[in-house]
């Protein structure tokens, strides 16, 4: 029976011109987004791979030189583009992908693409994720707002119910049909995305990318499922289809257009991010205090380079300063990043009321383009920087100038450069990403249950008479 209801509803939608137009339009947008995403992605990845390889090649080819000069010149670490960035670039357009690994200081990513963007950047980027998050629910609304209300207006609903069909069964049939309609659109898009992601993924990451894509797609089924039940529920509760569509559009605008901005403002107000000046002042003060304490402990003075601390101690002092600064950086950057993650957590929880927020977090999390992934890259790059510094300083300690005159003229041999391994960063696995997205997934599941309950409640109140 359920199947028969679903089939009938589906055929009816197919006959309706609305489906053709709406689905056609969204499909064109989806394919454009996929094509653009793929071409951007492949270009950026090729460029980053070449650049990363040339960084290390040039590092190895350095002549004999002072190790600290080599460390000062440093290297760049380029964040490899996630294979799934094709479908959801996440925060990538708003955060850089290049870190300069220099001596003394932990760097942040530079070259934020938004800094080169046009004035229209504020309207968003075209991506499969954006289309599904923003236009997906609208599509469900357009296709389903009169599922109950329209039939009631025409008198069909009363006839159907008088046949003795349970309203809940009717609801499930309609929900299945609506999902199938959306599926007409999503299945080709998902296949195209799977093809593009497989094509774009590098050797050895295809399996992971496809796992991520499946989990990602499942998330969207949940998300659109929430709207399927919400639309049917509202349609059943509304006396006219006009009222249903008005209410649904208002809900859609509230959640897709207004909620992300309002909650960003709210979370910013609740746990504020420090300004650049505050962050730098606190960090610098902490670094100086730590360094002075270490100098006092080790050399009995804080005066840099004098009778007590000759330049032959340069390597020792450098090593000591570097190593004592690592926990300071960890503390300050850790606190900042924790603040950001806290701000995001608040928005994910508010996904209970506005599913788009949980979906956005889940989508970019599974695509590997969220802040959690970015943080693992930043941490890996910083660990690599520390490794370079430690190797260079250790060499300076070993080859300390005891003559006292020729400290900076010391030149290390290229063997030292070769002792630094190449930078390799692998993004965390699909299961790590899923574990990190447990919260948003839970919120989406809760949202689906709530909207299903709501729809069951309103449809069960339908009477034949």
């Amino acid at each position, binding site marked *: 029976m359920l199947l028969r209801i679903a089939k009938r509803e589906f055929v009816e939608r197919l006959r309706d011109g609305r489906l053709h137009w709406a689905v056609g339009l969204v499909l064109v947008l989806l394919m454009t987004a996929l094509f653009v995403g793929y071409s951007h992605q492949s270009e950026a990845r090729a460029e980053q791979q070449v650049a990363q390889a040339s960084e290390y090649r040039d590092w190895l080819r350095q002549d004999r030189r002072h190790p600290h000069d080599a460390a000062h010149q440093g290297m760049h670490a380029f964040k490899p583009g996630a294979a799934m960035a094709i479908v959801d670039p996440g925060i990538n357009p708003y955060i850089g992908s290049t870190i300069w690994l220099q001596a003394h200081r932990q760097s942040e990513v530079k070259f934020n693409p938004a800094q080169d963007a046009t004035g229209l950047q504020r309207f968003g980027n075209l991506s499969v994720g954006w289309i599904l998050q923003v236009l997906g629910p609208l599509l469900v609304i357009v296709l389903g707002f009169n599922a109950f209300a329209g039939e009631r207006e025409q008198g069909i609903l009363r006839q159907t119910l008088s046949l003795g069909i349970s309203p809940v069964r009717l609801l499930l049939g309609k929900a299945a049909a609506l999902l199938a309609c959306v599926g007409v659109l999503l299945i080709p898009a998902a296949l195209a995305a799977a093809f593009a992601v497989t094509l774009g993924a590098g050797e050895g990451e295809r399996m992971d990318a496809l796992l991520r894509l499946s989990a990602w797609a499942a998330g969207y089924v949940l998300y659109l499922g929430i709207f399927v039940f919400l639309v049917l529920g509202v349609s059943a509760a509304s006396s006219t289809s006009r009222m249903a569509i008005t209410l649904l559009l208002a809900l859609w605008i509230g959640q897709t257009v*207004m909620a992300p901005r309002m909650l960003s403002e709210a979370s910013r107000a609740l746990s504020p991010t420090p300004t650049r000046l505050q962050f730098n002042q606190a960090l610098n003060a902490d670094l100086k205090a730590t360094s002075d304490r270490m100098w006092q402990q080790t050399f009995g003075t804080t005066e840099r380079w004098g009778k007590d601390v000759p330049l032959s101690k340069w390597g020792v002092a450098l090593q000591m300063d570097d190593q004592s600064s690592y926990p300071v950086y960890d503390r300050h950057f850790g606190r900042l990043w924790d603040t950001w993650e806290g701000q995001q957590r608040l928005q994910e929880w508010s996904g209970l009321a506005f599913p788009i927020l949980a979906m956005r977090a889940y989508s970019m999390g599974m695509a590997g383009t969220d802040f959690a992934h970015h943080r693992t890259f930043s941490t890996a790059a910083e660990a690599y920087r520390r490794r370079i510094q430690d190797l260079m300083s250790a060499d300076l300690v070993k080859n300390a100038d005891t003559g006292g005159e020729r400290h900076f003229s010391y030149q290390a041999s290229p063997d030292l450069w070769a002792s630094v391994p190449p930078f390799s960063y692998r993004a965390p696995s699909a299961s790590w990403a899923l574990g990190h997205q447990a919260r948003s997934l839970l919120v989406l599941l809760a949202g689906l249950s709530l909207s299903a309950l709501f729809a069951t409640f309103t449809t069960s109140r339908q009477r034949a008479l």
Partner: protein
Amino acid sequence: MRQEFKLLSAERSLWAVGLMFLLLIGYAVANGLAQTATRDRAQAAVWEADQSTRAAQRARLEAIRAGLATPLPFDNPADPSGMAGNYGGHHAVLPSAALGPVALGQSDLFPSQFRVTNQSRVGFMNPSDIENPWHLLSGHFDLAFVLVYLMPLLIFAVSYNLLSAERESGTLRLLLSQPLRLRTLLAGKLSVRAVVLLGPAVLLPVGVLLLARQAGLTGTGTAAGTTTMWWAFLVAAYALFWFALVVAVNAFGASSATNAMVLVIAWVLLVLVAPVLLNLAVTQVVPTPSRTELATRTRVLTAEAMKRHADLLATDYEHVGRGAALLPQDGKINISARALGNYAIQRELDDALRPQLERFDRQQQHQQELLGRVGMLSPAAVAFEGMTALAGTGARRHARFVAQTVDFHKTWKGFFYPLIDNRTALVPQDFDRVPAFSWQEEPPALVHRAAAIAVFQLLMPSLLLFGLAAWRLRRLCVS
């Protein structure tokens, strides 16, 4: 018209929409003011930190000259190579414009402060403010957002059934049997609704801004009054476009339900989809040069320069054990070889990278120019760009800030380079002559001309739509 107003005021929906609009605008204006105030405070703190550092350095220089303090290699205000670099760097800050709170625009994407030193600008002209990328993705809830995104929907809510409702209830036939032209009827209906919506949209923000300016909460700027007037024109022109669309859709004589559907689809296409596609098209046609390539090039050029000055870098500190080497003598100072090496490296890097960095600026300018030409395809894009330009948070004003920072950088180097080359020691009086950044605001005529173009770009499609409506209305079957 009076009759129409009576009818409307009896309808609860108009009041509900008006109240909602008022609340949204109130929240957006309050948020804009709060965000702008936060940014102003942060910038004031940057300026104060610069001033106090400079004052402390001057006091230290006086103490050194009086023999009361000993200079340290990395804390020596007499050394021009240190003062030109990280030790004495100074900020260039872009202040908020008078209308800043009405559109936060790209103020969070574009940096509004740069710490200028003698290094190449590739080193310091990077995003300077710390912000959660998630928030950058979401955008702000400011007045420009409410007007560009939400005002059209509220216009639809009060007028989607402008004519269709009268026809559906049969009153249109009655009305037109009176000596009343359809055009007059429509004009009356439209003006009542426009007054109800534009009243809060224009008067409330202007009033709040005036109060805030009186209280000294926002910047004043030149010609703030005229700029505000242009902003009101822009909002009115944008609203007019949507009213024109409503009239044109109504003129086709479809049912109220169809009208509402067509209008919502138009909104989705013009406000949500078109700007995103335009942005994409512009960046495809005029692509930004590669930042990855810039990073690689910077590293290679630095390595080459370091190699050229390897001898300077290989010289040991001369001051170790001889503190007097750091003291100025007869107006001259002994700059350490490594500091001179770094100075030469940065100077060469700066010259070598300039053409590449200028390419970024040029490309961005081309993108913005192209956008100015094709932006017309989406009235929302025109309105948003126009509002951010008037609020001083758009791309044009930021490009001006970048250009002025580049000039300031030039002046900065012009001041310090001869001092370093001649090993001239700085004296306390020199501190008054160290170049300071002072922002030169955009000429009001430029801002107003751009606003006039935006208003024109909005009026053109509105007139077309009204023309279309007039043509259809003549054939409209009343019964």
